[in-house]
């Protein structure tokens, strides 16, 4: 039997990168095939070519053994290929049914047959066991639901081959589990699935086979049973990596940051923090876990003076820093690794030297009486680059010239070299390669070991569980649960992240009672 999909020696060149370099990829009938690789390895690019969004620079694509030329997504859909993108492409004010039929609407004459649309949606949603409410409006439903809608949309158009691009990035652990069940149900019905991810655990849990790509090149295709997380990590990164974080137990010190009943609005003046309270002690890592969009971004902005809160109180080392200016908060000894390094963390057109003193530029020895001391700044920057192993030709290049991981290292270096009392690290490893993750994690733990307070805000549950001494779960703008890091389980956190309460569910699911508190 011919392969469902066979991509042969696919090369895709962009003006200054070769995103895919003679990549081979095959998909068999009814399998879940994971495409694994670090950020920027070329996974999305490869699949975009299968979906007709990009045309390969060279190489051939066969569907069921027949050579095809996929010029655009309509052709791809014609071949039964459906793709769910990393960022959903739903029309927010439309209903679920409207979104699913968009582009292939059932018509009555020239009019949209909305009744048939709803019936159709109900039918396929039953067929595949993907429960959705056809009349719900997209912006009212959860991200997990929205993903189902995307999948249904692809199925509605007759997809036999489904490409899911990093579908788990936005899901809670429970939702990830459900997605796994859905995927298996789909393959049972004869569909074939390509799952893109950079998370190793998912690969082991969900795949039949794995193809690893690194820097645009094929590394290997493996069968699930014959591999392990460690082997995959090594293949993905190209060297042995230590995925464990070494962390000694440590008694935390006194409370440094106290946040009480904090409330704030987002840019659209909608309340997002709705009474958030927690504290962080010296010598501990407190992690804020939660699904994206539950107020994490705003919380960090408020704590660092970048957003004005409405009410509540924030005290740091006994001082009131509620509504304080960023400048004064930096002065207090709070460092901040921002979640968006390109937007907040760096002035891209400035040199690394100039970037390494952002926030301390008015301090000696970097400046005195308003005059910058560039020789000192350069010297300092070189030291920082050396100590944090930032890969760059020199401190004179613009920040934009560095890779994402090295940009992040520069920011981490800058924030830690300031020798802060507290570090607020927001998504510190987002989009950086495994090597840099290892490095950044080590540095965070080091801060804690030196008696600093660390507030870690992360969407990656693995990161939270590996690093945190205590985990505060944020849901809908409030801290809904506080768990000891060493005792936390993924399931527990998942329930809290989805807005559930541990006590109730614990009673429901007999036996779990008393596990926390």
């Amino acid at each position, binding site marked *: 039997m011919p392969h469902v999909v066979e991509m042969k020696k696919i090369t895709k060149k*962009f*003006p200054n*990168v070769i995103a895919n370099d003679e990549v081979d990829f095959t998909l068999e009938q009814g399998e879940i095939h994971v495409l694994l690789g670090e950020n920027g390895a070329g996974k*999305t*690019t490869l699949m*975009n070519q299968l979906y007709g*969004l*990009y045309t390969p620079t060279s190489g051939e694509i066969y569907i069921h053994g027949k050579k095809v030329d996929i010029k*655009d997504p309509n052709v791809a859909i014609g071949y039964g290929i459906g793709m769910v*993108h*990393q*960022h959903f*492409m739903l029309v927010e004010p439309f209903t679920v049914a409207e979104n699913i039929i968009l582009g292939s609407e059932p018509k009555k004459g020239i009019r949209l047959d909305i009744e048939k649309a709803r019936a159709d949606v109900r039918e396929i949603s039953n067929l595949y066991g993907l429960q959705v409410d056809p009349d719900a409006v997209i912006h009212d439903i959860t991200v997990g639901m929205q993903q189902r809608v995307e999948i249904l949309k692809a199925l509605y158009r007759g997809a036999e081959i489904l490409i899911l*691009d990093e579908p788990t990035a936005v899901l809670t652990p429970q939702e990830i589990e459900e997605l796994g069940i859905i995927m298996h149900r789909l393959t049972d019905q004869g569909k074939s699935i390509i799952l893109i991810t950079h998370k190793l655990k998912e690969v082991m849990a969900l795949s039949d086979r794995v193809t690893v790509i690194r820097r645009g090149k094929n590394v290997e295709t493996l069968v699930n049973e014959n591999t392990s997380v460690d082997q995959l990590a090594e293949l993905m990164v190209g060297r042995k990596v230590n995925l464990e974080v070494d962390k000694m137990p440590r008694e935390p010190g006194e409370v440094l940051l106290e946040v009480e009943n904090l409330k704030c609005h987002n840019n659209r003046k909608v309340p997002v923090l709705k009474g958030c309270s927690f504290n962080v002690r010296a010598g501990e890592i407190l992690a804020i876990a939660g699904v994206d969009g539950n107020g994490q971004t705003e919380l960090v902005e408020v704590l*660092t*003076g*970048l957003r004005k809160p409405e009410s509540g109180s924030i005290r740091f080392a006994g001082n009131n820093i509620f509504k304080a*200016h*960023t*400048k*004064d*908060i*930096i002065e207090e000894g709070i460092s*901040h690794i*921002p979640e968006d390094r*390109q*937007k*907040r*963390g*760096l*002035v*891209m*057109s*400035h040199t690394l030297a*100039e970037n390494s003193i*952002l*926030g301390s*530029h*008015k301090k000696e020895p970097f*400046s005195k009486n*308003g*005059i*910058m001391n*560039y*020789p000192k700044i*350069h010297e300092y920057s070189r030291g920082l680059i050396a100590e944090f192993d930032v890969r760059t030709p*020199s401190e*004179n290049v613009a920040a*934009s010239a560095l890779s994402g991981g090295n940009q992040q290292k520069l920011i981490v270096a800058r924030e830690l070299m300031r020798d802060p009392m507290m570090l607020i690290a927001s998504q510190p490893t987002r989009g950086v390669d495994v090597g840099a993750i290892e490095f950044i994690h080590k540095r965070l733990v080091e801060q804690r070991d030196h008696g600093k307070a660390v507030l870690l805000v992360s969407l990656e549950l693995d990161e939270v569980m590996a690093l945190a001494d205590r985990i505060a779960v944020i849901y809908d703008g409030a801290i809904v649960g506080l768990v000891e890091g060493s005792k936390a389980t993924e399931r527990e956190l998942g329930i809290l992240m989805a807005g559930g309460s541990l006590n109730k569910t614990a009673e429901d699911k007999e036996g779990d009672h008393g596990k926390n508190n």
Partner: protein
Amino acid sequence: MEKTTESRWAQLWDNFKFPLLSIFLAFLIGSIFIILTGNNPFVAYYALISGSMFGMSRIGETLLKTTPLIFTGLSIAFAFRCGLFNIGAEGQFVIGTLFTVTAGYIFRDLPAPLLIPIILTAGALGGGLWAAIPGVLKAKLGVHEVIVTIMLNYTALFLTNFFIRTSLNPSTLQGDVQKAHSVILGENARLSNMSDLMPIFGSSSLHTGIFIAVAAAFVMWFLLYKTTMGYEIRSVGSNPFASEYGGISISKNIIKAMFISGMLSGLAGATLVSGLTFKIDQAPASAGYGFTGIAVALVGKNHPLGVLASALLFGILANGERKMQIAGIPKEVVGIIQGIIIIFIAGEAILQYFPDLKKKFRRKGPKTEVAEK
């Protein structure tokens, strides 16, 4: 350290090779137009060069025309470094002249060494305050500076005309008959003529304002690249979000940058009045130094030293134009050459924007991928 300076020079060359090429190409294309008008490009360009540069008097005149352009070019470049498009240099220039004459009259009895610094400061202050208006509006209310500065250009012109007619008129202040210009500055308020200092400049009206202009360029360079203020202004100009994150106040820096930018334009007016015209005339439209300044800043890549060079180029074109006309070449040719230079350089800005765009594309997910289609 050795390597640092070397790469600095490489960087500098990188920045200026394209403007130089653009200028060369502009002259090349300009020659096509000259041929189309039935003239010989060599004759035309010879006239242009000789008319502006052969002989110290002519060089003096060229530098005279260069002086206000240096100031307005610096003014626009400075605002630009903070991410602001100051279209209001024209109005700030006009207010600069108004303040200069006013201060010159009020303090008319002071000796020159005191009076001249006072009136120049007054002119700078006038321009600075005028520019601070859009600065404050932008910083506090988010009103776009382009709109406000354009409107204030007219306001400045008519306001100045009004004062020339009324309180600054010789008829009001000196009991003279009604004139179409303001009172005239006394000798003690005038910048020295260069030919008085160096007779070699002959009949040219070049005044010592050129020194002030060149000094301003170096001061601006120092301010931008050697002070914390410059660091903050450039940071806000390139990435306001990161600046905010670094504890830098966006609004304070916008106001500061507009004020300094306005001071530079105000100085253009101040030196022109105190060095050349000694009075201001009622005018239906302003002189255009502010607008040419935009081109000067653009060609000079918003770098103070680049502005010096590009102001000189525009000075040469402006001064050589006359001689070309005498040689029978339509003066529009000069306009065409200026236009082509600007188009090329603006074009390069667009070109530079593209890889940037692409970088932005690469950063984000599927949106970009769709965008390629």
